């Protein structure tokens, strides 16, 4: 190691906390997100222990409400939404477009500080006494009745929203303006298409959440009736505004995961992604249609039947681009030279879990079935298959895939494969029983339930124990690898993307000379060897 890389340019604390290097900021985000992931996970652990028995013998109802709210708020806003964009995205976007940094490096650093400010505010609300509204802050409970720290928690989420917006803005501008010579839109890796679509949602949906939370805080603080029906307000308006953000937010959470899967499937099948243009436009289609389906969260709220029909129809439509992706990934596998390294195991797990999550989403898009399934564990299982089975699996897959690039070290393939398999089984054991619980009518958000549901709940809690263990494993073997792992070569997977054509870890400004792109992404020759994008 004669040349300095971004990790060895400077070792001071100041050089980390005042860095404008997108790679170091990615590491800052990564460390923060691990912290939030385990806080949110701790809440889930208590929830699953409580639900192992039908009686409420561990926590009170009130504590239970605060636990699932804490789990939801932390996991949605402080883990899932920033997960792939702010860590993997931050790290590889400039590398993939052949740029020396993001368009606005200082804004990038600022977004991390804003994120941490929002995170600390929310944590303070949680440890001061918690919030019992559920992560959705539904009115009029959140504004009139809840005796918990709603304003503080809303403020935390509000602040964190600006970090999302700044990240989205940075990605959009960087992808538009900083692409290397020769890197046309149809030569972009599909991860960038999906991050671009994600960024559009971040920029256009997050401000609506901001204004909605501001209205909630105003109503609570001043005691006015913006959403209070007694003085003319409409609680449903809150739900419309909230889901106008929060449904697209689901796509903020899954689109980057889909993007990662393209990279993994292609690299470990040694093949070009099947139907590149369809997959690329499917990302934008999901982002666009995703803005028009929010009413499917409100089928039983009393909105008009016409509205429900339209929202139901649009929800089925959004399944089309999602299915295009799944079919194209499986078509990519066909006749590929498959290699079952850890990232590929995660990718294959993703395809299965996302498909189950997506198909059960269609159940919920059906007006008639949704009436039965609303607020049951069926919904909980469905969105955990997308969020955890999909996004978290993709996050782990991407993390393993780019790990040698990020740290310049290799990890233990055996441990990594074991963790990937264990996560897959633990996940299914945790959440598949919840589909059955939901279909049988067990409502969510109760910690006491009829004894006939216990079998499935015990299975689920048992699975959660396996899942928790499996999620802890990477902490150890990746942590070991980061300091003691064998040095990684520049391109350990023999992948064609630009990020692999510079050293591992990359130098401070990514490339010694400006790369010039000469071909499409994902090109492999007859011997299944990568043909680098810039050669």
């Amino acid at each position, binding site marked *: 190691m004669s040349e300095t890389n971004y990790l060895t340019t400077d070792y001071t604390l100041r050089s980390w906390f005042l860095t404008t290097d997108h790679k170091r900021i990615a590491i800052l985000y990564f460390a923060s997100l691990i912290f939030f992931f385990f806080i949110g996970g701790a809440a889930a652990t208590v929830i699953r222990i409580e639900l192992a028995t039908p009686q409420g013998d561990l926590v009170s109802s009130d504590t239970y409400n605060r636990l699932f709210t804490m789990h939801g708020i932390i996991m949605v806003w402080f883990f899932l939404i920033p997960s792939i964009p702010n860590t993997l995205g931050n790290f590889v976007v400039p590398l993939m477009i052949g740029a020396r*940094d993001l368009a606005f490096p200082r804004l990038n650093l600022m977004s991390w500080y804003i994120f941490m400010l929002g995170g600390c505010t929310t944590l303070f609300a949680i440890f001061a006494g918690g919030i019992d509204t559920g992560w959705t802050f539904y009115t009029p409970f959140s504004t009139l009745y809840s005796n918990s720290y709603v304003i503080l928690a809303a403020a935390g989420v509000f602040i964190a929203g600006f970090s999302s917006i700044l990240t989205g803005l940075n990605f959009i501008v960087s992808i538009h303006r900083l692409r290397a010579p020769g890197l046309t839109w149809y030569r972009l890796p599909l991860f960038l298409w999906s991050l671009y679509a994600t960024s559009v949602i971040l920029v256009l949906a997050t401000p609506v959440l901001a204004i909605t939370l501001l*209205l909630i805080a105003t109503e609570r603080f001043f005691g006015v009736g913006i959403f209070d029906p007694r003085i003319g307000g409409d609680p449903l308006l809150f739900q419309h505004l909230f889901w106008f953000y929060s449904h697209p937010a689901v796509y903020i959470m899954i689109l980057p995961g889909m993007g990662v899967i393209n990279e993994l499937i292609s690299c470990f099948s040694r093949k070009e992604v099947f139907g590149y243009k369809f997959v690329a436009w499917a990302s934008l289609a999901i982002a666009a249609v995703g803005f028009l389906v929010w009413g499917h969260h409100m089928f039983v709220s009393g909105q008009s039947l016409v509205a429900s029909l339209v929202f139901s129809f649009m929800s089925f439509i959004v399944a089309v681009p999602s299915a295009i992706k799944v079919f194209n990934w499986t078509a990519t596998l066909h006749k590929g030279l498959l290699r079952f390294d850890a990232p590929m195991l995660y990718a294959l797990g993703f395809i299965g879990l996302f498909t189950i999550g997506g198909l059960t989403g269609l159940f919920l898009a059906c007006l008639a079935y949704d009436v039965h399934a609303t607020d049951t564990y069926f919904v909980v299982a469905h969105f955990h298959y997308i969020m955890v089975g999909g996004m978290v699996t993709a996050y782990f897959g991407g993390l393993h895939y780019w790990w040698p690039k990020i740290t310049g070290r290799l990890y233990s393939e055996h441990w990594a494969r074991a963790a990937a398999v264990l996560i897959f089984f633990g996940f299914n054991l945790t959440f598949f029983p919840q589909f059955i619980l939901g279909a049988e009518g067990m409502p969510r958000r109760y910690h006491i339930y009829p004894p006939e549901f216990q079998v499935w709940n015990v299975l689920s809690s048992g699975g959660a124990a396996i899942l928790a263990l499996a999620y802890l494993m990477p902490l150890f073997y990746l942590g070991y690898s980061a300091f003691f792992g064998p040095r990684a070569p520049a391109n350990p997977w023999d992948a064609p993307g630009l990020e692999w054509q510079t050293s591992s870890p990359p130098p401070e400004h990514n490339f010694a000379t400006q790369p010039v792109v000469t071909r499409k992404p994902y090109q492999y020759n007859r011997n299944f060897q990568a043909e680098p994008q810039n050669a």
Partner: protein
Amino acid sequence: MPERAAFAPQYASVPHRDNTAELGMWVFIATEVLLFGGLILAYFVYRHAFLQGFAEGSRHTDIVIGTTNTAVLLTSSFLVAWAVEVFSPDTARLSAWLLTGAACLGLFFIVLKGIEYSKEYDEHLVPGVDFQFAGPLANGVQLFFIFYFVATAIHALHMLIGICLLTTLAAICRKAPTARHHTALHSAALYWHFVDVVWIFLFALIYLPGRSSS
């Protein structure tokens, strides 16, 4: 220490940097449009539900101050546009004066807004603080004033940020302006015009509803 390059390493040239910065401001404005858009949507939902109440509420606003403020803000936007047009290191003095003028007009807007707020306070029209309104339209009027205060307060906050930007740029123009400040000025001007456009919408939504056919 090597001398600082004219542009950061991720850019290929000065124009490249400037184009990129400008696009960033446009994307930021897109996000702002949705921020006010959500608020205006909620306003319309309630105006649809409480047509009479909103008209009544609107009649209690001060259209003289509102109209004056619109004129003040449009003039200030004009000065900023002028400053962008003439800006160069040679004509920086003129730009500095124009920007100072625009910032002063912005402050004048805030002062007038404050006077308007205090009038409404005297008339017991501030929901959550002191709101008294008798009659069947009370709910609608209260909702109208909630939106009036939330929207104008957020707008005023944007104004204050804009005034800081304009003042800073005026100070730069006075001291050591270089060609690179043209982009900063241009972006600040975009922001200021955006705040102006928001006001034009708010003006129509706040001051005009009850006054068209009475």
